[in-house]
């Protein structure tokens, strides 16, 4: 019986400052953008307060749906690539011992605390026509004209993989860390070989970690703006890029806002799937005969 359970104490003023701040500085602006999405742009470029769903209807035109699907598709492929690289990295880290493990984790993250724009710039100077890769390949005589990597879809993939890898490594790593080592030993003891232990013991027990971790990078990728902007060409625009251009190029704020609403809905939906999945998977976790 602790004190906190005793009475319905009221929330103190200090907390109200924080909550008020969040409400004013995050929620209210978000509400404004949502509200804007139901308004209309007049031919003169002003905004008319005429409540309608036209902007959302317009979002479902072919060209915008194509952007939506491309965003989801590219984010999906990039997530799977992250998984393919991130899993071995996390696996190695989880099996390292003591300071090696600490050092590995710190090494993995140091690049991510250099400026984001700088990292992108690093990639640009690496991948460009005069970049390191092309310089080396040209001087070795492997290619005769520079490879087009920058401002293509490959550039976007490289950018996404580079920037999101550690955020997938961490959840997989912690899932592996939580795995009781005696489970593996029990697997070996019961006659499984390394391969069988991996597929029948390790994977079934961390699949939730894999799934949640994947969504952990997939969701923010959906809202990506800078990477497609700086590493991809105009053809590789994400929902975020089209949205920004609606604001600044087309000057159509209501339609841009509708795209923001759509993007938020898309992310919310994915998040909802994630929470639902983590709730139900509790029953299935740990079964050996998966």
């Amino acid at each position, binding site marked *: *019986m602790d*004190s906190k*359970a*005793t*009475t319905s104490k009221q929330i103190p003023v200090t907390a109200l400052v924080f909550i008020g701040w969040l409400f004013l500085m995050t929620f209210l602006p978000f509400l404004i953008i949502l509200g804007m999405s139901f308004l209309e742009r007049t031919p003169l470029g002003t905004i008319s307060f005429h409540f309608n769903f036209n902007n959302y209807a317009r979002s479902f035109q072919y060209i915008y749906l194509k952007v939506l699907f491309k965003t989801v598709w590219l984010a999906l492929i990039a997530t799977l690539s992250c998984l393919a690289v991130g899993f071995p990295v996390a696996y190695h880290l989880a099996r390292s011992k003591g300071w090696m493990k600490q050092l590995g984790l710190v090494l993995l993250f140091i690049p991510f605390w250099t400026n984001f724009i700088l990292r992108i710039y690093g990639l640009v100077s690496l991948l460009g026509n005069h970049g390191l890769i092309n310089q080396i390949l040209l001087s070795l005589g492997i290619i005769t004209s520079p490879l087009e990597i920058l401002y293509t879809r490959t550039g976007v993939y490289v950018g996404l993989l580079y920037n999101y890898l550690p955020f997938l490594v961490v959840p997989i790593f912690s899932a592996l860390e939580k795995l009781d080592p005696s489970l593996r030993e029990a697997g070996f003891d019961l006659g499984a070989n390394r391969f069988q232990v991996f597929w029948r013991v390790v994977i079934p027990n961390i699949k939730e970690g894999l799934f949640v971790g994947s969504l952990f990078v997939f969701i923010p990728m959906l809202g990506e703006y800078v990477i497609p902007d700086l590493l991809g060409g105009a053809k590789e625009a994400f929902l975020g890029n089209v949205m920004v251009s609606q604001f600044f190029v087309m000057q159509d704020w209501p339609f841009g806002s509708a795209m923001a609403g759509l993007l938020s809905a898309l992310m919310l939906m994915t998040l909802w799937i994630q929470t639902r999945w983590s709730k139900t998977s509790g029953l299935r976790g740990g079964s050996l005969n998966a």
Partner: protein
Amino acid sequence: MPLELSGLTKTYSKDGSGFRLLPIDLTIETGEFFCLLGPSGCGKTTVLRLIGGFETPTSGKILLNGKDITQLPPHKRNLHTVFQRYALFPHLSIFENVAFSLRLKKLGRSEIEERVSEALKLVQIEDLRDRRTDQISGGQAQRVALARALVDRPEVLLLDEPLSALDPELRVKMREELKALCKKVGLTFIMVTHDQEEALQLSDRMAVMRDGQCLQVGTSKTIYEDPVDPFVARFIGQVNEITGDLFGDSPETYFLQSSLGNFRIKKNGHPLNKRLNLILRPEKMRLLRQRSQVQENLIEGSICDLTYLGSRTEYTVKVKDATFKVFEQELERLKKRKLNVGDNVYLTWRTEDAILLNSPNS
């Protein structure tokens, strides 16, 4: 002057689990070492927190020296608490931890110095005064917590399971010191514990609690020898129980009729034909190697387990489908015939050693 609790209750309605502290009336005398004993969740800590002022009672009053302190916040009550995990301030040295309450009172530097030194000396840790809290052992932390609570000269010291965080050896040693400290400073000590041995050893009087209810208040001896409730009997020490019905064929003799036989019992207020529990302490029972002349209170059984513990031997005796514990003192070497597992024995006891209580199911 005493600490009085009158009609104190507390109701929690958190997530419908609905814990309730039933009205408690207690008077704790000045200088007394009083224990609140009970299993976890029985409400003993709640009582302590109510006295300390960390919770407000739903109804009832708390009087200290005749003054109503029920509604006072903790910092206005002249009593201090020794917390279960000691709650020493990690950002302060040992000296500053002890000096905390004196500094809040803005006492002069020399007085603080003097009183803290005195308190540290009282608990024999003068040499630790400049250490940090993470540089001392559990036993030392316990002493710091005591000094910190005593330095301000409270009228009552509240101790919330103060020994539970210590290792067993130290715990036994600290018991003696706590008791000596209580007598030395002459303050009222109120201690919460779930350890019956601790309560028996330390307290002048104790209250045994269960499910938010105070079952019995009394000295160690009263609680052990004359429990008023089967739960109290079982909670303190070990018991053997026989359930049966009371009958009497004359005004002088009463018997308990049970599946193990009829046993004579001392006359007391229980009405006839009532279902009762006969409670026997293992050390008050005797083992007979053969059927003696004694015909009363005799049960035949066989030994199914025995443990030699040096000063005594503990036997487990099987009687039909019940088992009995019997402790026999090893008084004289080789005097008695050695008993082995499987031997047939007879159990007996003196009528006045049997405790008769209402059966909880009746």
